[in-house]
């Protein structure tokens, strides 16, 4: 398994500002992912964070709003840009371990974001 940590665990931000969320994995992972969980909802995949190249975004999510970096195999950041109250959600990162098949993913504890 893998242990995934996220910073910050929660934040309250003002409309129009940006927040960068960090995700750190204790093992090398082949893939890292970012999800959004809106209040009372299920998880939706935002993007796949690719090491050394641009992230792959899902339909409805764009790089200008959610820029993602992944400088190495164990670290990634997600920025929520120009925030509005609709961005209030829990943001989770996950990782898929090398050698573990069937797309089993391990999740971080999440970052609870409130936008005023």
């Amino acid at each position, binding site marked *: 398994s893998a242990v*995934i940590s996220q910073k910050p665990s929660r934040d309250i931000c003002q409309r129009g500002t940006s927040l960068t969320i960090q995700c750190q994995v204790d093992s090398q992972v082949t*893939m890292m*992912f970012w999800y959004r969980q809106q209040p009372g*909802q*299920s*998880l*939706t*995949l935002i993007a*796949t964070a690719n090491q050394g190249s641009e992230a792959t975004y*899902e339909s409805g999510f764009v790089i200008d709003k959610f820029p993602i970096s992944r400088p190495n195999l164990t670290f990634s950041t997600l920025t929520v840009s120009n925030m509005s109250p609709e961005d209030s959600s829990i943001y*989770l990162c*996950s990782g*898929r371990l090398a050698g573990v*098949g*069937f*797309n*089993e*993913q*391990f*999740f*971080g*504890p*999440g970052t609870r974001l409130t936008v005023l």
Partner: protein
Amino acid sequence: AQSVTQLDSHVSVSEGTPVLLRCNYSSSYSPSLFWYVQHPNKGLQLLLKYTSAATLVKGINGFEAEFKKSETSFHLTKPSAHMSDAAEYFCVVSVSGYNKLIFGAGTRLAVHP
């Protein structure tokens, strides 16, 4: 296309009674299926996974699930509920060769004394 339907948004049981959380999936290919649990203010934890080896899958904390291809179901069960089982449970499907996980809407399990 792949999808997951969790048939109950809320399930309430008494402590010591059986738990059944229902999940149906749709997949054009041989799926991998997972159950994750999310306790309040905690991250997601993998309960169990089906990866075509055995249709009856045993997970952590006494949970198990049975893959039934003819019914396209992957229901989660536990013989005896404990207060600590109260949480949100997600049924998840992934298609072999693809990295995307598709989450069901979730089932909130309440356990009463």
